[in-house]
């Protein structure tokens, strides 16, 4: 009897377990390319506050302890931790010695979706590691350093406090913007208490605008000789300090993307510069991390707006820094990006936008020799696949009418203003325009992630392709090793080579007595260059992309020798006889 009860319980439990998993299997069916049963449940059609970001990162780290490492790289002005997830196969090699891709987002506090796109990347890589051979090999070969937000304080301020789509942009330091000896004495005022800073308009006989009779949300500019009805007063606010100006001095103003240490310029040359390179704790934290991780070979820093894949130089004065070889590599990767993300264009900052000094991508490339892009996320093309231009009111109102059902616009409402009198307040909300609407978020996150994966894939991949021996007599032999780099990026960019930013690649032989060592410049015609000092470790300045280099030793003995390649950005590979 007991036996029967025992067996029956086991049967029941097994049935229960099976039915649970069968239930799950029956609930979901794979959509190609997306994990359908992720360990970490995440919603990619909404934005996260700082707490939400930290929560997700902790969940990912907890679910995948062998694929991730969660750490704080420093603290913000308001003492928040700036968290980073290192994603790699920790069971294969030391992640801090593999070629690495650095990704960050949200340096401008109001440019929020970079955090979601970075988180999506960390989530996707970990969830698909077991499923997809490509991702599996990618994490064996490479490391991803992912910092979803490098401006946590003001991200929360943008979300939780009244702001325009463009504010604060800086961090939370409050500076004197008008030189009157006071700081932050006149910021925006949320007059209608809706947590958005929208527009103020006022009826005026000299106004140049009228409301569209068919769509009261829309303001139309009248012809030059026509009378208008409304004047635009500006963003919501009052003259708090009585100096005759409205909203002239709130949080900031400074621009964290002018704080980087390459051709840094002070504020009167470059608006938004703070005191000196890395004078802000957030940017200093990133710089310190990058300096300690010379294995970073590629980087992405997410911004919005515009649908752009940007490379430097940031300023025209810095044109000489980017030479033809490196531009070719930038071109190859970015042109592929244009294909992956329809609507996004590959552009150069100083030429196609405006000159910027002290930007992040300038320091990453100019100062550290890292191939770096900034993607300006979100572009109006994504709405209807039309190029109507940025901030096209007609198009935006059409989006809100047919796709977002009024969620984007604050209807015009009357208000009694202390200085302007009777006005109306209304306009698009802060999270429309620059920020993706929910329904566009996941697709663009996936495409941009795919671009960064392609970028990471093209960081150097080294292998010892071939080792030949030639007997020279008198107990000596020539050992020639061919080292191959099968990806686009060289181990040293030309900026790196020009200034010796990173150490040479070291190719060493052990287990043999080395008589002489040399770099083989031309094998066919036996042109070699001897390295007289320490020939056991040949110092090679660079291993170019899609190319091979050869080194040679003359050794005695060495029946079983070992060859080791140690490259900062190329990683470590070994070959045993």
């Amino acid at each position, binding site marked *: 009897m007991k036996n029967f009860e025992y067996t029956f319980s086991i049967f029941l439990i097994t049935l229960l377990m099976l039915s649970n998993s069968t239930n799950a299997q029956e609930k979901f069916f794979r959509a190609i390319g997306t994990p359908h049963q992720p360990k970490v449940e995440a919603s990619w059609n909404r934005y996260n506050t700082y707490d939400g970001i930290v929560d997700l990162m902790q969940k990912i780290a907890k679910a995948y302890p062998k694929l991730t490492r969660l750490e704080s790289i420093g603290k913000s002005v308001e003492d928040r931790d700036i968290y980073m997830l290192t994603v790699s196969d920790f069971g294969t090699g030391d992640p801090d010695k593999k070629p690495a891709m650095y990704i960050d987002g949200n340096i401008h506090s109001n440019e929020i979706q970079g955090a979601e796109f970075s988180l999506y990347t960390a989530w996707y890589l970990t969830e698909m590691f077991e499923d997809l051979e490509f991702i599996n090999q990618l994490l064996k070969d490479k490391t991803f350093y992912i910092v979803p937000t490098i401006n946590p304080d003001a991200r929360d301020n943008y979300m939780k406090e009244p702001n325009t789509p463009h504010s604060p942009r800086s961090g939370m330091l409050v*500076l*004197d*913007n*008008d*030189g*009157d*000896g006071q700081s932050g004495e006149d910021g925006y005022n949320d007059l209608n208490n809706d947590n958005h800073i929208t527009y103020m308009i006022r009826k005026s006989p000299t106004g140049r605008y009228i409301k569209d009779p068919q769509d009261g949300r829309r303001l139309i500019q009248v012809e030059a000789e026509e009378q208008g009805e409304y004047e635009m007063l500006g963003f919501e606010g009052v003259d708090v*300090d*009585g*100096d*005759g100006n409205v909203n002239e001095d709130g949080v900031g103003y400074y621009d964290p993307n002018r704080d980087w*240490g*390459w051709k*840094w*310029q*002070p*504020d*009167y*040359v470059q608006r938004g510069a703070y*005191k*000196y*390179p*890395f*004078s802000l704790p957030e940017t200093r934290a990133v*710089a310190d991390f990058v*300096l300690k991780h010379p294995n970073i070979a590629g980087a992405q820093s997410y911004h919005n707006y515009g649908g752009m894949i940007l490379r430097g130089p940031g300023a025209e*004065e810095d044109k000489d820094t980017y030479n033809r070889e490196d531009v070719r590599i930038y071109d190859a990767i970015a042109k592929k990006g244009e294909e992956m993300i329809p609507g996004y264009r590959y552009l150069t900052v100083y030429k196609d936008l405006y*000159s910027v000094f002290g930007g992040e991508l300038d*320091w990453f490339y*100019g*100062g550290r020799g890292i191939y770096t892009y900034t993607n300006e996320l979100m572009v109006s093309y994504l709405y209807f696949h039309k190029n109507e231009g940025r901030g096209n009111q007609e198009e935006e109102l059409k989006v809100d009418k047919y796709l977002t059902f009024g969620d984007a616009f604050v209807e015009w409402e009357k208000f009694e203003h202390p200085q302007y009198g009777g006005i109306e307040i209304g306009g698009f909300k802060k999270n429309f325009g620059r920020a993706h609407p929910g329904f566009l978020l996941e697709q663009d996150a996936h495409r941009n992630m795919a671009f960064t994966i392609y970028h990471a894939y093209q960081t150097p991949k080294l292998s010892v392709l071939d080792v030949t021996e030639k007997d020279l007599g008198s107990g000596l032999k020539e050992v020639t090793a061919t080292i191959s780099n099968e990806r686009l990026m060289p181990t040293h960019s030309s900026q790196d080579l020009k*200034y*010796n*930013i990173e*150490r*040479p690649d070291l190719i060493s032989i052990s287990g043999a007595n080395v008589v002489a060592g040399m770099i083989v410049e031309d094998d066919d015609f036996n042109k070699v260059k001897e390295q*007289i*000092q320490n020939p056991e470790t040949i*110092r090679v300045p660079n291993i170019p992309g899609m190319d091979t280099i050869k080194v040679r030793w003359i050794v005695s003995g060495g029946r079983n020798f070992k060859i080791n390649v140690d490259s900062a950005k190329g990683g470590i590979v070994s070959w045993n006889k």
Partner: protein
Amino acid sequence: MMRHTISLLLFFLVHTLVFAQADYPNLNEITNRLEALDKNSNATLSTLTTTRGGNPIYALKLGTGDLENKPAIAVMGGVEGYHVLSTELALQFAERLIQNHPQAVEHTTFLVFPNMSPEAYEQYHAKLKYERRGNSSNLNHDRDGFLNEDPYEDLNKDGFITQMRIENPTGQYVMHPNDNRLMVEIDTSSSDVKRYQVFSEGIDNDKDGKYNEDLIEGVAFNKSLTYNFPAFEPLAGDFAVSQKESRALLDYLFQQWNIFAFVTFGPANNLSSPLNYNAAKAKKRIVASPLEDDVAINKTISELYNNTVSQKPYMQENQGTDGDFFQWAYFHFGRLSFSTPGWWVPEAKQDSISTESKLKVTKASNFLNWAKQESLDDVFVKWQKINHPDFENKTVEVGGIKPFMVMNPPFSKVDSIATEHTDFILKLARYQPKLEFHNLKIESLKGGLKRISVDLLNNANLPTHSQLGERSRWLQKVRIELSASKEKILTGNQIELVSKMDAFETKTLSWIVKGNGNLKLKAGAPHTGFAELNINL
């Protein structure tokens, strides 16, 4: 009685130790003098940070009353570690100010930073003496992936790093025809004499063919600031302002809104001769020349300097080097910036029996001539043969001008240099911006209204803002504020911001106000000081 005598003796001992110095002070002596100054009620000593090498970076604030709201002059010493004179001059300025010119601190606040390079400075007192610029950070100067792999070596064991010369037909140096102690580069007019290779004293530790190219020193303060930062060069650092001491100093300076001028004791000199104005460079987006008005100010102050200081200029070509503090203070911080070495080797009287009169006089040859004329014996280490492991079959000699001699005068000369430079700084202070109200007029209009008009005068030889400073967000505008409420003011602004007032410029202000009573009018900025006026309606 006994105790009294002992304490009296001790007092005099300390006194003489402090005031009867025979040489430039070491770091402990500097600290003692600063702490003694701190005891004075007009002086406050603070530590901005401790360097990686464990030394404090001091800031001394001297002044009375509302220190933050009157014009301030910052005095810098030790921007170059080997320029030990600069620290002494900064210290003596502070000491003389407190002792002899107490009234000066009523009108001006003085900030003194005596030594920005304590580790480099201390090499003057170390067992092995050489001119050092870098702090104690680890920096790979030749960027070859190895750290500190080729420092100096004292081959002749004399406690100095000088030069070494190696006889070699492929060498690029010959002896100076007039003084065979000096080595000069050959040119195409050289006659057939013995040729040498010349290096600094040491061995090629890493056998790369270069000598002492990767020293055990870190970042040089005066090469690490943001103006024309020399990226990737030795001693500069990975990026500008990377070190604790430079960050701490700048963080502090950006909080001192009242500094209107810097006086830096360092190798650059824009006081003996002013900087030049280059219109094309001044118009560039990255401003590369001082602006026109500011060059005019430089000329005025340069004249002031030359009238106060007795030394005539000679070979003062250094008007700024990449990454230096002197140019940062003007081009990036927007303040007036003046720099002088304090002392330089004067022009030695020419030798009347010089046969080769066409020969170029160099700093080194002039120095040796001058030293001879001054009967300074101990300035040169005589060339002496040594055995050198890298040059086994060659004749190698060690010798050269002793370090510190060319930049720093014998200590006996410091007293008069310090007196003159103290006078100069005080004269500069008297030129500072000074706002005053004059010609107040109150007219009664109909209906109880009153028109107030008054002149605001910058009664000073200097404008309130340098031309470049006007563009900088780190200088406040002149804020004029009338203490009446907005409803009471019918015309005129309650708050008005003026971006600049020239030397001796007058601005007329007027308001029409309602009512009676006492109003207060205030105008100024921290770096100009404030003028206040009581208006009784």
